[in-house]
């Protein structure tokens, strides 16, 4: 009896060992997303899940020839949910950070919204260079990646730092500022409202990984390196074949991929 038990135990251990070596065949990928972050991923009042993240996810799944199911999950439990095998990948505009990298693995970024500069509609500024912005009144939110960016790239301007975006928006609207810098999504959301009618986007800026971070990636469990590589590859493919641009243009007037 004891011998049989021992054999069974050894067999079980070998089986477990073999199963970890064998690559999982990905035919169905469960994707976790938050569902409350428009316009990237949100549930509609009719229960549909929509947004940029969702369209990208569907395009990636089509590219990888796998079936995708979406699981919506509150943000606070989204990484634990991945680790507990509730879903296989997180596509929810999650920024790639060193802290998160300790727990999960990321694909290469699938977008990185660039910073942009907004100016009044009648502004004489035509380009965003260090020389062009020298001496102007330039607004940004303090202690953000954008104020750091302004200091690094437009050091000759007269930089004014505000505690919240609302304040530089007011000063830009009433003429105290010549230009302001922030995330392009934040700025274009504001420009689309009545309060933002005063102004326009001068240009988007080149992202600097040192300052702006790596962007948003797809999180997977650390052992699923094959899935991570397939996702990275699929991102490169849809980027190259125009599918990405098609989705991008549905939501944004600029390229959110950054460079």
């Amino acid at each position: 009896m004891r011998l049989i038990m021992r054999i069974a135990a050894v067999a079980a251990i070998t089986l477990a060992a073999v199963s970890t070596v064998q690559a999982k065949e990905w035919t169905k990928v469960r994707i976790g997303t938050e569902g409350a972050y428009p316009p990237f991923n949100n549930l509609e009042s009719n229960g549909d899940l929509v947004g940029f993240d969702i369209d990208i996810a569907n395009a990636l799944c089509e590219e990888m020839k796998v079936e995708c199911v979406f699981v919506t999950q509150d943000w606070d439990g989204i990484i634990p949910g991945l680790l507990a095998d509730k879903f296989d990948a997180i596509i929810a505009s999650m920024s790639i950070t060193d802290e998160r990298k300790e727990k999960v693995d990321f694909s290469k970024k699938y977008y990185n919204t660039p910073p942009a500069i907004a100016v009044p509609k009648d502004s004489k500024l035509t380009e965003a260079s260090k020389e062009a912005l020298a001496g102007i009144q330039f607004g940004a939110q303090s202690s953000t990646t954008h104020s750091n960016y302004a200091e690094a790239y437009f050091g000759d301007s007269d930089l004014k730092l505000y505690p919240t975006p609302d304040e530089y928006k007011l000063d830009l609207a009433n003429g105290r500022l010549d230009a302001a810098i922030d995330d392009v999504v934040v700025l274009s959301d504001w420009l689309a409202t009545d309060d933002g009618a005063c102004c326009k986007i001068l240009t988007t800026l080149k992202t600097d990984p040192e300052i702006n971070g790596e962007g948003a990636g797809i999180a997977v469990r650390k052992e699923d390196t094959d899935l991570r590589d397939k996702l990275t590859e699929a991102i490169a493919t849809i980027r190259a074949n125009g599918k990405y641009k098609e989705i991008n243009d549905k939501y944004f007037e600029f390229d959110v991929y950054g460079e």
Partner: protein
Amino acid sequence: MEDLFALLAFGDNGWGDQIASGVLLTVSLALASLPFGLIIGFLLALAKKSEEASLRTAANIYTTIFRGLPELLTLFLVYYGGQILVQQAVRFVFPDARFEINSFVAGMIALSFVFASYASEAFLSAFRAIPAGQYEGGSALGLNRLKVMQLVVLPQLIRLALPALGNLWLILLKETALVSVIGLTDTMRQTGIAARVTKEPFFFFSIACLIYLVLALISSIGLNKIEAWTRRGEVRS
């Protein structure tokens, strides 16, 4: 203002049906946890007043753990920890099996464990308020221990423990708001989504406030009815 109330419409254009389904989940989760919480709590109280020292210690350890841990942590432990643990065990035997703890069940287990730890203390203090003469009188009438419990002690116990249990019920009802972290779409999650998608946070969170207040109101009406029922044998002055 009318635009705001249009957001609450039922059907494809409004959030009414989503929020209603959230309320349904909140209420059914609380109702489903209650009986387990009460039964475990009652058994724990029995264990705590038992003469067997190991039973007393075990019950006290249980209470210390589940009263001491934040409810959110208990939820995480049951749902994610339980999942990982069972998964490891199952995979050891069947490598390809995928086991999933249902989030409703996990929420129910976590909430009733916590409820039970508090309820056991409520039952215990009620037990202490019943004089020994009641038990003695019961056995003098020839009732066995089970019958004494059922006919003499329990009716008094319920009356004595009810105010404390009523409080615990209201706490349970509000604690269900934590379950959105384990993927359940309760009242808070649904109003939170609606608030962020429509960009009307103040309106939707006020609605959530109202919903919880109404639930509390209904609960206290119900509790008053039960209390009147437990006191039906008393002389009214």
